[in-house]
C-alpha cells in the first residue's frame, strides 16, 4: 500500500446513523478517507469508480443483502483481496459462518464499541500491509 496516500474505506449500511458511527470510530485511525453507501448497488458503483482499501459491511439491507454483495465482490478479481469487516446486529450470529465462508475477514456485532472496531480494523489493515 502506498504509505503516502489516504486509505479509502467504504462503509455500507442502510442506516445513516450507523454509517456515521462507524466513520467516526475509524476516524481515529488517521489517514483515512470514508465513503458511504446506503445499498449494495451503491457500494458496487463506488468500487467500480475505484478500489477501496477496506469495506465495512452491514448484512440486513434492502434490495441486496450484504452477503450477496460480499459474494459478488469476492468473485471479482479486482476486489478479491479487499479486507471486509462484516458488522451486523446481534441476533444475526447465525450468519457468521455464512459471512466468513463468503469471504469476510472479520465478523463483528452491533452494538460495537468504537475502540473495538478501531482496533480490529487497525490490525486488519496492518496485516495487509
Amino acid at each position: 500500500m502506498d504509505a503516502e496516500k489516504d486509505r479509502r474505506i467504504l462503509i455500507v449500511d442502510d442506516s445513516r446513523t450507523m454509517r456515521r458511527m462507524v466513520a467516526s470510530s475509524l476516524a481515529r485511525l488517521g489517514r483515512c478517507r470514508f465513503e458511504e453507501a446506503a445499498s449494495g448497488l451503491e457500494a458496487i458503483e463506488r468500487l467500480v469508480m475505484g478500489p477501496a482499501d477496506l469495506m465495512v459491511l452491514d448484512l440486513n439491507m434492502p434490495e441486496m443483502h450484504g452477503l450477496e454483495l460480499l459474494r459478488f465482490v469476492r468473485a471479482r478479481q479486482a476486489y478479491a483481496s479487499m479486507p471486509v469487516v462484516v458488522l451486523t446486529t446481534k441476533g444475526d450470529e447465525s450468519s457468521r459462518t455464512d459471512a466468513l465462508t463468503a469471504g469476510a475477514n472479520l465478523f463483528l456485532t452491533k452494538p460495537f464499541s468504537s475502540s473495538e472496531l478501531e482496533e480490529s480494523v487497525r490490525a486488519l489493515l496492518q496485516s495487509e500491509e
Partner: protein
Amino acid sequence: MPDPNEPEGDDFFSEFLDDYFAECEEHLAALRRGLLTLEQFIDQPRVDDSLLDELFRTFHTLKGISGMVGLSAAEALAHEMEGYLRLLRRGERQLSQDGFDALLAGTKLLEQVIEAHRTQSPLPEIHAAVAALTQVTNTSIVEIETGPTESATTPGNLGKPEWRFLFVPSAARAEAGLNVNHIRSRLQEIGEIIRATPLIEEGEVTFEFIVLANPTESVLEDLRSIGLTFAPITSEREIETTPTTPFQPDRSAPASPTISVRVDLARLDQLMLLVGDLVVSRARLERNLSTIRNFIPSHNWRQLQEVNATLGKQLKDLRNDVMRVRMVPIAEVFERMRFVVRDIARETNKSVTVDLTGQETEIDKFLVERLMDPLLHLVRNSVSHGIESEAERIRVGKSSQGHIFLRAETAGELVVLEIGDDGRGIDLDRVAAQAPGIELKNREEEIDAAQLLETISVPGFSTTRDANRASGRGVGMDVVRRSIRDLDGSLSLETNPGKGTKFRIELPLTLAITDALIATVDGQTFAINRSSVQEVMEVEPQKVKVLENNEIIVHRDQVLPLVRLSRVFNLQDKKEGLLHAFVVGTGRRATGLVVDKILGLREVVVRSLNDPLTEVCGVAGATELGDGRPILILDARELLNGPQASVSSRTT
C-alpha cells in the same frame, strides 16, 4: 480482539443522539404505515413478503441503532418484534390477532421509550409488552400450509408488463450525476422496481433492474438518453393476484446521503430570523431614502429607489424559499391519526374507516409538532363520542362502518384542516344540561356553533358520564382551542344532529414573517395580519348609528357592528373626517375594526410577545417598520370576540 458483546462504557456515540432520533422518527413512520397494511393479513395464510421484509428490517435497524446509543429498552422491544416477524417471514407462524395486537402495542411503546429518552423522562415499563410478544412468538404454532414455496410477493401492478433495464455504472457517469441512486429514482417514477441485481455483462459491471411499468415512448427515449438500455420481458410467469396495498414496500435502497440533508429546525429558525432582520433593514433603507429625496437629483434618487425595489423583491423570494425549506407534507401527521383511529375503534368496539385528503399539503415543521396533540384529541373525540356503535348506526339507517375524515388544503396564506365524522353530532341537550342558562340556538332556532364551541371549550367541560379510556384523558376542548390559538390559528365547529360533526382549523402558513396592513389610531401605529382582513372600507361618521351601546353601520346591505380600536386601547376617538375600518370575520360574525387612517400594506416580521405578563388580549405580537419603534400586531379574531372571550370561534 475485545469481547464484541461488551457494550461501550464511554459516551462515544452520544454525539449521534440527534441522528439517532431523526432516523428513529423515519423508521417509526414506516412502521406505522406498514402495520396498518399488515392488519388486512390477520389470519390469512400468507402475508405479502415484501411487507414482512420491510417491517422485519425496520425493527432490525431500530434494534441496531438503539443498542448503539445504549437505549436497551428500545433494543429489547425491537428485538422481540423482529423475532416474531422472522417467524412470520419463514412461514412458521400465521399472523394472529393477538400477534398483530402485540406488534402494535410494542411499536407504540417503542415510540414512547424513544420519546422518553429524547426528553430525558423516565422510561415506560416494557415488561408486559415483551411478555405479550414472547407469548405470541412461542405459542401460536399453526398448521403450515404446504403450498408452493414461491413467495407471496405482491406485484400490485396486475397486468403491467415487466421491463428489464440495464445500467452500466462508471466514474464518468457518476460525475455527471448519473449514479445508481439517480437511476433507481428515475425508474421508480415510471413503475415498481421488483428486483435490482448486479451482473457482469461483456466484462463490465452492470446493474439490472426489473420494473413493472407501462412506459410511453417518450419516457423510454428519456431513459435511453441517460444511458439505460432496456427491453420488455415476455414472460409466461403468472402474476399473482393479491390485494393491492397502499403500502410502498421499500424494495429499493434508502435515499443516498447525497440527495438530501437534514437540518436542525433551530438553524432554520435562525435563518428565518436573519431574513426577518433583512426585511427590517430594508424598511429602514426605504425610510432613509424617502428623507433624502429632496436633496439629491431625481434621476439618482430613482436609481436608488429601483435598487431598493429589486432588493425588496429578492428578499421576498428569499423569504419564500426559506419558508419552503421548512415545509413538510402533512401526510405524516395524518397517517398517525389513522393509527390512532384504528386503535380507539378497537378499544371501543367500533368499525371506523378513515379518509385522508390533501396529504401532500405542506405545513411548517414547527406546526407539525404542535398540531399533533390537538388533532389527536379531536380524532379521539370523533371516534369515541361521535361515531355510534355498530348496532346504533344500523338502527338509524347508517352504514355499520363509521367514517372519519381528515382534510388539508392551502388557501392563500392559510392552511385549512378539517377533521370530521359521520356520527351522531354533538348532543345539544347534554351540553345544555352541563351549562345551564346558555343559549345554544339562535333566534332562527339554528345551532349557534360559535356559542356551542365556546361552551364545550370551558376548562373541565365534559358530557361523558364516566370518562372512558379513549377520551377522558384530561385534555379537553379548552386545551385544543388554546393550542390552536397559540399557533395564531382559529378553530370552528359545525355539527348536525344525527349526521356528524366537523372541526375546522385555520392556521397561518408560517409565523415568522407576514403581510400586514398598517393603520394609525390617535397617532399610534398598529399592524393587522392581512389574511384576517376581508376588506377595507371607509366609514363616514354620520352614517354610524348607535344601537344600545354598540355602533353599527349598513354595509353591503348588511348591518355591520363596529369596534373602535381607540376605545379598545383607551385612546382618543378621531374628532372629524373620514374613518376607516378593516372588515374581519365573515357572515354574521363580520365586524368592522375602526381606525383613523390606513397607511398601507407592509411585510412585517412578527416578534412574539410570549411573556405572560405582557400577554394582552387582542395583541398577536410586535414588529417594527424600520424606524426602530415597536408597533403592535393586532389579533383580529380576538378583538372581534371582545376582551371577555379570548379565543376566536365562528361558524363556517
